[in-house]
């Protein structure tokens, strides 16, 4: 539905641009999100018990990513072929761009998985060595920034993967200009080839990388915030905008989410990306669809709050009812609404889009998707009986 709303009435040229923009944004997302999706792995005990190794372990990791990402492949299909006005025209070009998007997406994910899978030993070195301690001290002294040296390899990976993706998109559009539209796919094929070679090299001994990286991220995410060193302790009373009956529930979720992931910074990066794309002056429909996609992406925080490690079913059932947890998660999401409205209205002031009608639609998508994901949380809670 999103794909149709986004590009249903686009011409073939607009469709191509839409796919490029989406892949551009996805490059940053893949680079940032991969370690959070893979590590620490809750199935590590089963992996050890089964002593899964070699190709089996790689297949397991790829399957884990596929569970998250298959809807994106459906979106590519709809963006390419979801043509309301001329569904049977330019079928070859549409097919090629569908393959272009899927190939690029799978290739960049392979690169990302490989790079992060290999990052454990380096990350541990920086986290635990004297050199890392010196680095932490220097950063704290000169830049007043609480960066953990163990996160440096991940930061470098994020930059490299984002850059690789974005450069490939630009290179593809250059091929398009020089040789014609059918040759843009070369850039995606190169990304896929790089990813395939990297993962193929890893197949010889992925266990060591998997166990060391998983151990590092488990320690990193577990000990990173000991003693509230990074996220200050928020007081319950500060959440004046939450009704009293659910205030403590919202507070504990926010406390946990902000410690697990720098949620505010992630949303800020999302806003920055949208402004960057808006600066290119794309079509109004494209910007509206992008805002809707962004509004929907906010609900990933609700999905995070459904993890057993954050919200054990037995504890949630003990503390509150299903209705209570529905409103808790829904209300928690309202904290993103003001920045969303502010950002949209500033963009309206600067670039003339999105208009008030579009803003209403985007807000509606935000609220309804928050309700749906919150309701999924309740269903999950009720199904979690042994």
């Amino acid at each position, binding site marked *: 539905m999103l794909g149709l709303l986004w590009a249903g009435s686009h011409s073939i040229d607009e469709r191509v641009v839409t796919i490029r923009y989406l892949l551009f944004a996805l490059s940053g997302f893949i680079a940032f999100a991969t370690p959070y999706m893979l590590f620490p792995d809750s199935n590590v005990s089963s992996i050890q018990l089964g002593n899964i190794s070699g190709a089996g372990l790689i297949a397991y990791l790829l399957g884990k990513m596929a569970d998250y990402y298959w809807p994106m492949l459906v979106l590519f299909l709809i963006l390419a072929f979801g043509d309301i006005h001329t569904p049977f025209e330019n079928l070859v070009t549409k097919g090629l761009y569908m393959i272009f998007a899927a190939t690029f997406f799978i290739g960049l994910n392979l690169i990302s998985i490989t790079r992060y899978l290999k990052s454990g030993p380096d990350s541990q070195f920086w986290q635990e060595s004297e050199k890392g301690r010196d680095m932490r001290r220097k950063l704290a002294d000169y830049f007043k920034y609480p960066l953990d040296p163990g996160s440096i390899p991940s930061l470098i990976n994020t930059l490299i993967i984002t850059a690789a993706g974005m450069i490939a998109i630009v290179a593809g559009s250059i091929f398009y200009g020089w040789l014609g539209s059918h040759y843009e796919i070369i850039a995606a094929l190169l990304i896929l080839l790089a990813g395939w070679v990297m993962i193929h090299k890893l197949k010889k001994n992925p266990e060591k990388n998997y166990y060391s990286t998983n151990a590092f991220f488990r320690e990193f995410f*577990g000990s990173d915030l*000991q003693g509230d060193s990074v996220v200050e*302790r928020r007081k319950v009373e500060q959440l004046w905008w939450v009704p009293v009956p659910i205030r*403590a*529930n919202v507070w*504990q979720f926010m406390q946990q989410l902000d410690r697990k992931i720098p949620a505010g910074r992630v949303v800020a990066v999302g806003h920055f990306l949208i402004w960057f794309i808006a600066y290119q002056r794309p079509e109004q429909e494209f910007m509206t669809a992008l805002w809707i996609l962004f509004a929907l992406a906010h609900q990933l925080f609700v999905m995070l709050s459904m993890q057993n490690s954050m919200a054990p079913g*037995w504890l949630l059932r*003990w*503390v509150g009812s299903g209705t209570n947890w529905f409103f808790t998660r829904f209300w928690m999401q309202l904290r993103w609404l003001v920045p969303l409205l502010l950002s949209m209205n500033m963009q309206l002031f600067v670039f003339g889009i999105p208009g008030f009608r579009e803003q209403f639609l985007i807000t509606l998508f935000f609220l309804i998707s928050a309700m749906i994901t919150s309701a999924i949380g309740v269903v999950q809670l009720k199904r979690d*009986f042994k």
Partner: protein
Amino acid sequence: MLEIKNLTKQYKPGKPIFTDYTNRFDAGKCIGVFGPNGSGKTTFLRILSVNSYPTNGTVLFEGIDVHENPGKFLESVGLVHDEETLPQHLTAVEMLEWILRSRKLWSDSSADEIDNIFDNLALAERNEQIGTYSTGMKKKTQIAAAFILKPKILIMDEPLRGLDQATRKVVSEMIARAKKENRLILMSSHSIEFSSELFDEMIEFPL
């Protein structure tokens, strides 16, 4: 206080864990649940704590069917669950604050009460995130969360498992005190020396 009528639980047809079990437990009693691994102790306690539903039969608390009105029943329950999963990005102190506030039991003295209970249980790391805790530390947090509410019923699955000797003694004293305060306690345990002193009734599994 808690009445069990014709309770049957089976995960698969024709393979009941227990059948037609009936009993009644009164306030101020401590009930021990014993039996070998896999005999149904945890299933029994999970049903009593509304974390599992019976195949047949009812559990009544002060005349109310607990599985029909779980929210109302759970307001009166303190729980030490068989799973050790706790919210790993909260500290133990924050978890207790959250539970007290959500039960509308938070007062000016609550912060001191939380400190006292963790002092008793010797949990020095109370202000660190639960994700960094050992099994025993998580158990202490669960026990503290169950007792801080001063509930009418305490349902505890192996509360002493994973605790050192000194803490086991402290928890035993807490249970004895709760019994004197007229609370109903249901707990499973493997500890023989512990059982004889406190339990008013022992239920042996398989039933």
